[in-house]
């Protein structure tokens, strides 16, 4: 049974997760979960793409930058891609992306790549619930908030620098 | 022949009991039973049971608490796990039987002089005292508490065991009995806390 999402403002952190599901397997599996009336956590918003291979790592970065606490990418199992091998390309790209995310301080578990076939409605449920629980435990990422903070800091810094006499600035260099 | 009513009314069912069974470890799949009876068929002791394991599962699922807890069936289970292995729905029948035995002892509804629950309790007492079990003492104790007459029929076996050096009247004990008692006592606290909840 899924946990209710909103228990009153501020009562508990509810993760916001953006998911990219490929049309042929994972999106269909999510449809199947619906037809089967499986119940899972309401924190995920699915964006449909034809193939997980369409997902540019920039989409993932953009989602984090716009405030996602987690990003889930779902494609067909290896060997089962509707477009022969799109998911292998996804895998390669996302391995690289994972390393980058790590270097950027975005914790493991905030980005997840899952192979879910069109028949695995129950896997959509378990993956979503599991990911929501893990991201909830990690707490908010809030990159937009952080960006704003950083912007403010830089602004102040700029302000300080521009307010200082030019001589000292040269000296500092 | 006296006539006995077999009809059951809904008021005689205890739904909480059914839910309790399902909540026990091993009880998860109870509701999946399709009543195929393979548990009864594979059970080497079902021929003595008042309810076959299959019937007991259904009684438990439907919440017929009295029938389930006072049945002989649960005490005749020898824990051989054949039913669990054969069950097409992966119902952990043996573990359900254990849970029902515990509940019957807890509720005090087992047959008083029936040796099996007595054995279970005596076994527990002996472990609590010594940390190990001396089979000879356990058996003597058991018969004295249930049917000392039967003890006489066992003297042949006792003699044989003595003859072959397999019998001992000295309780075997662990050295750090306090350690074991502390562990078990700590769980008493756990159990009480659970009840309070």
């Amino acid at each position, binding site marked *: 049974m899924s946990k209710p999402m909103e228990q009153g403002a501020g009562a508990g952190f509810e993760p916001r997760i953006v998911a990219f599901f490929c049309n042929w397997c994972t999106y269909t599996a999510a449809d199947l979960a619906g037809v089967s009336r499986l119940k899972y956590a309401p924190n995920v918003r699915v964006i449909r793409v034809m193939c997980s291979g369409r997902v540019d790592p920039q989409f993932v970065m953009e989602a984090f930058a716009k405030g996602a606490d987690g990003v889930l990418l779902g494609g067909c199992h290896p060997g089962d891609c509707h477009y022969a091998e799109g998911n292998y390309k996804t895998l390669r790209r996302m391995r690289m992306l994972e390393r980058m995310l790590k270097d950027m301080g975005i914790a493991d578990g905030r980005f997840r790549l899952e192979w879910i076939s069109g028949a695995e409605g129950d896997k959509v449920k378990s993956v979503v619930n599991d990911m929501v629980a893990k991201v909830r435990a990690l707490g908010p990422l809030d990159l937009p908030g952080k960006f704003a903070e950083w912007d403010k800091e830089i602004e102040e810094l700029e302000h300080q620098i521009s307010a200082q006499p030019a001589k000292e600035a040269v000296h500092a260099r | 022949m006296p006539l006995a009513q077999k009809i059951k009314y809904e008021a005689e069912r205890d739904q909480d009991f059914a839910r309790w069974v399902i909540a026990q*470890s091993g009880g998860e799949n109870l509701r999946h039973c399709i009543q195929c009876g393979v548990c009864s068929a594979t059970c*080497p002791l079902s021929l003595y049971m008042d309810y076959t394991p299959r019937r007991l599962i259904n009684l438990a699922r439907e919440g017929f608490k009295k029938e389930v807890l006072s049945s002989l069936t649960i005490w005749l289970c020898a*824990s051989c*796990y054949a039913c669990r292995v054969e069950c097409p729905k992966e119902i952990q029948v043996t573990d359900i039987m254990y849970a029902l035995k515990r509940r019957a002892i807890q509720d005090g509804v087992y047959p008083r002089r029936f040796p099996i629950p007595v054995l279970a309790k005596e076994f527990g007492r002996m472990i609590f005292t010594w*940390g190990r079990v001396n089979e000879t003492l356990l058996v003597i104790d058991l018969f004295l508490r249930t049917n000392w007459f039967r003890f006489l029929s066992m003297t042949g076996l006792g003699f044989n065991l003595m003859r072959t050096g397999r019998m001992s009247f000295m309780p075997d004990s662990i050295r750090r009995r306090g*350690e074991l008692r502390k562990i078990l006592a700590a769980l008493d606290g756990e159990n009480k806390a659970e009840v309070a909840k």
Partner: protein
Amino acid sequence: MKYLYFPGCSLKGTGKAYEESLLAVFRALGVELKEIEDWNCCGATAYMSVDETKSYALAGRNLAIAEREGLDVIAPCSACYLVLNKTQKNLQDHADIRRKVVAALKTAGLDYKGTVRVRHPLDVLINDVGLDAIAQRIQAPLKGHKFAPYYGCQIVRPYATFDDQDDPVTMDRIIKAAGADCVTYPLKTRCCGGSLTGTVPEAGLRLAYILLKEAKKRGAEAVVTVCPLCQFNLDGYQDQIARKYEALDLPVVYFTQILGLAMGLPAAGLGMQRGIVSADAVLAGR
């Protein structure tokens, strides 16, 4: 090769011959067994009927003591083998049980991380020692002898870890390595009655009778077992079986005794004299 040894209560009592033969055989094979320090009763089948968590704690104390040594544990008694394995598995799978049991252990200064492997001597003989090494040690093969390999329940059920659940064969292979033959024995995993034979003899005796009768009918000169309770039920009650059904006079021995004999170890050191039904037939021709 070195293992921890969990004898359990039976091997110190009615199952003495099992301990004697096991230790003798393993010593001869160069396998070191170290008895777990201050072990306690595993709880067997009875304690599970009293208190579930406590029965895990009982077994848990043994596992905690064993874990300090960092060795695999050998549990020859089927009940001990199952209880220790079941505890291990449930502590792993159920965080709730693990939390309670570990907390209780900690009150006595113990801890358990869950790293112990509990093994059966059959598993160790086949998979660690190996049949080749065993074959090299066979000095007095039991040529012409036919036995019924009887596994009973709790080593293959419910967890089939080292052998098949329906048709286990590890003991068959050891008996054959000892130079003897196995009769086809479809009852090899059927229950002996366990503790019921003592408490409800009318039920238990019938089970033991069926097992013995079928073994004899198929030409076995002894039933070979892996469990002290099976041995006790099949061996100790034969006079009562004779009174109620028929006299069968079939020796019931441990597989370690058979292996020990074939390895040329002295019969007395293997506890051969401890059978209530005389095992002279097995010793014949030696």
